[in-house]
């Protein structure tokens, strides 16, 4: 019988080897497929049930935190956003079934305590039960953020304040937006319904128009055209343009007109502060497609903005071939019409680069991350993104923009409190074709104090209402910028 017993042993070993092979197949081979299965909620539940660190502003206002649920709830923790909708475009939401956005997404590992540093440091926590979650500190200033929200009111648009020397975003507000607490609910179905609703309504509240959308910039773009021409040597401060109400570019019979068909001309400060269109159309066409496109590229136009929040978009100008065949469009592109489109954040960066001696910093909103004991995990080091102009050009542009505030299109509205001098450029981007009802975006891009800039700002109001469409960048966006800068500079 012993021979049969040996065979039995072999058969049983073979059976167990089959089990071992199948285990390898499942636990190693199929692991990625199984983990990715949408019905497999293990990882999500684990994440969702873990404690999670705070997100706060630079002045220590908590803007996202986790609170313990009552015993017996489905989940141990509830993510809450104490400031409602004020920071939704910055923190994003953290949901059970619909993922996470913005900081909740990109800093998930820090917040959940899952970076390698935290894991090593947190080894103790295995024994003493402390959690290992981390904190994210944004560069946002709570007062300035609130001021931006209040100043914009219920008009669609956005306000971005950045620090020219570092690229730190001090305030970033987009309207319409949504209350993050409505999405980060325990009821997964409800969260889905809310998201669907937010996706479907006009104004796209889920998109932060400050950095995820682009708009026609109007005359604010003239600072870029001017910088290009000054650096090229095509024009100087002393250049002059004859008075005219319209200019006929090559390749067309349709002339380019000044705003409101006004007669306009003079030296560079004059045409800049009055925001004449024809001189800048002439400059763009004289510079030619290659130089204009190259200048736009020096400003980072055409590239996705290297922001530390996800899904930022890029500004657009156009390419050489397109403009060579459409010189009139290059002309109107020179004053921010046509196909030119700018991301509001990018326009703020343009003002900041003028304020910062011609150097454009990478924008960032995540200032630093900390472990549970308050030790720094990572602190954002300001880095240069572009150098779009020479220091001399930036100094001259500052002078031109001061002129806009003191005698030009922003004279009405940019006299800051305490006599602080601002520098600005307005824009009124005409969206309607000739003969259609007026529709325009109102822009202002500015910085202050003009001689020792602390803040650069952009205000953009979307031309979705008659009130905005009938106004101009100076009269509509100007007061918003003034209110925000007053709060910021009062600190």
């Amino acid at each position: 019988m012993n021979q049969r017993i040996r065979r039995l042993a072999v058969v049983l070993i073979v059976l167990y080897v089959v089990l071992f092979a199948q285990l390898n197949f499942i636990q190693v081979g199929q692991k990625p497929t199984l983990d990715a299965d949408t019905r497999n909620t293990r990882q999500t539940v684990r994440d969702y049930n873990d404690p999670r660190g705070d997100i706060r502003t630079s002045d220590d206002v908590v803007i996202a935190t986790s609170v313990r649920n009552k015993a017996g709830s489905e989940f141990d923790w509830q993510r809450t956003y104490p400031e409602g909708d004020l920071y939704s475009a910055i923190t994003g939401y953290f949901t059970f079934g619909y993922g996470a956005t913005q900081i909740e997404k990109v800093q998930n590992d820090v917040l959940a305590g899952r970076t390698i540093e935290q894991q090593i440091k947190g080894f103790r926590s295995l024994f003493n039960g402390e959690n290992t979650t981390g904190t994210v500190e944004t560069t946002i200033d709570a007062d300035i953020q609130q001021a931006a929200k209040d100043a914009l009111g219920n008009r669609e648009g956005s306000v971005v304040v950045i620090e020219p020397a570092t690229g730190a975003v001090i305030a970033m507000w987009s309207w319409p937006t949504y209350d993050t607490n409505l999405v980060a609910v325990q009821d997964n179905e409800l969260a889905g319904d809310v998201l669907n609703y937010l996706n479907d309504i006009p104004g796209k509240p889920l998109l932060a128009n400050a950095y995820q959308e682009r708009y026609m910039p109007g005359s604010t773009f003239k600072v870029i055209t001017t910088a290009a021409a000054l650096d090229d040597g095509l024009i100087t401060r002393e250049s002059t343009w004859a008075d005219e109400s319209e200019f006929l570019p090559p390749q067309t019979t349709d002339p380019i007109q000044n705003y409101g068909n006004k007669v306009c001309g003079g030296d560079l400060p004059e045409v800049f502060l009055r925001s004449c269109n024809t001189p800048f159309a002439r400059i763009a066409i004289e510079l030619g497609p290659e130089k204009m496109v190259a200048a736009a590229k020096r400003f980072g136009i055409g590239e996705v903005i290297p922001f530390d929040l996800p899904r930022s978009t890029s500004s657009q100008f156009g390419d050489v071939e397109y403009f060579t065949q459409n010189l009139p469009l290059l002309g109107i592109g020179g004053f921010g019409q046509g196909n030119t489109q700018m991301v509001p954040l990018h326009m703020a960066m343009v003002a900041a680069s003028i304020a910062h001696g011609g150097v454009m910093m990478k924008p960032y909103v995540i200032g630093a991350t900390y472990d549970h004991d308050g030790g720094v995990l990572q602190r954002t080091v300001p880095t240069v993104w572009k150098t779009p102009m020479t220091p001399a050009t930036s100094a001259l542009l500052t002078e031109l923009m001061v002129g806009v505030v003191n005698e030009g299109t922003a004279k009405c509205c940019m006299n800051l409190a305490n006599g602080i001098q601002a520098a600005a450029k307005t824009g009124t981007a005409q969206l309607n074709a000739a003969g259609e009802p007026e529709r325009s975006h109102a822009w202002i891009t500015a910085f202050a104090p003009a001689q020792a800039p602390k803040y650069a700002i952009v205000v953009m109001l979307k031309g979705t209402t008659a009130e905005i469409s009938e106004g101009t960048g100076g009269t509509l966006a100007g007061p918003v910028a003034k209110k925000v800068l007053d709060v910021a500079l009062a600190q």
Partner: protein
Amino acid sequence: MTDTNNVIAARRRSTEFRLVLMAGIITAGAYTLASLGQNSVIPPRILPFLAVLLLVLMSAHIGVRWLAQGADSTLLPVATLLNGIGYVMIARLSERLAGLQTTWTFVAVAAFVGVLFVIQRVNDLARYKWTFFFFGAGLLLLPMVPGIGFSSGGARIWVSVGPINFQPGEFAKIALALFIAGYLADNRELIAAGTWKVGRFYLPEPRHLLPLLAAWGFSVVVMVGQKDLGSSLLFFTLFIVMVWVATEKTSFLVIGLGLFATGATAAYFMFDHVQTRVAIWLDPWSRYDGKGYQIAQAMYALGSGGVGGTGLGLGDPTRIPEAKNDFIFAAIGEELGLFGSTAILIAFLLLIGAGLRTAMRTSRPFEKLLAVGLTTILGMQAFIIIGGVIRVVPLTGITLPFVSYGGSSLVANYVLLALLIRVSDSSARRLGEIADSATFSERFATRLAQRRVRKHPEELEAMS
């Protein structure tokens, strides 16, 4: 007992002691880690736990040292390791069940020592083969008795007496293995000889084969009738393996496999629940919202464990329905990863190896067949349920020996282990590895006889 004889036994027992201690250390470590992983605290009841663990392990070990000195040294440690890992997993899933499992472990170890004490001459059991059959058959039928029997999870295999619920089938398997071993030990040559000529074939005399076939047929029909597919499959395999080993006739193996194929096909077409089992085995995903959910969750659990596992207490095994029972292997695979699940496989292979080695060392047919039968029960039961969980074979509900939660299963498997250890010890005695000293009952009988001779010397004279 002489000193030379004692050396082998002493070495075996001290090996067993060290291995049992290691199993204890692994269990205690795993218990602590699971608590740390789950609640980040050293388990509050760690001291009572260690005391109970030590008590259980040492009782079993001292039981073997006292009653089965010459037995194989790996059987008990591997079983206690499996029991320990199972306990840690159950405790991690439910504290309430952990308390019950502790009680059952005490009962099981008591039964283990009890069996070693009561059954000191394993060959004596062969005489009671028909008793074992009727005992086993009775146990199998018990769940059908109105009033005490009830079904749970689709199978009518439970009996409730007072506060205690148990599965008599777990014990019936051992009784039936004892019966088949006893019957074949007596009749195997007659069955193998094939003296009945039918046409061109020589078949075993019906009077030798029929009782066995009847007993086997009855058991399988009862188990199938109770919808206990796992047990019927296990018993079928047990029967075929034992007949094949006993008769050394491959034809029985072929006939057995043929019968199995026929039976399985018939069952497939006759029973809806068999069709469902096969369907969810082939594709659990399309039945995710129904019967396939459990297997799908087991797959997710194993996948989420990966190679290294999520760590004890850090996984999410409560999402698998019946994780404490039939699906405990998936829970282990999740938290201990491929390393842990493979360790379980290796532990069962070690048990199989030790069991079959025991079978090969003994010269007595009954002991040989009994050891083969008991080892087959262990090895096949583990294969059937692990294979069911990881989709090697269709899932048939059955416990994972020593690991799953459940009193009947745990006690029955410790009884089975005691019998294997007893066989192993008795062959060591016969091989002269240790002194074959008289057993407790033999010494008692001797003393009775001596007293009688002293009181009535005339009886002795009359006998001679």
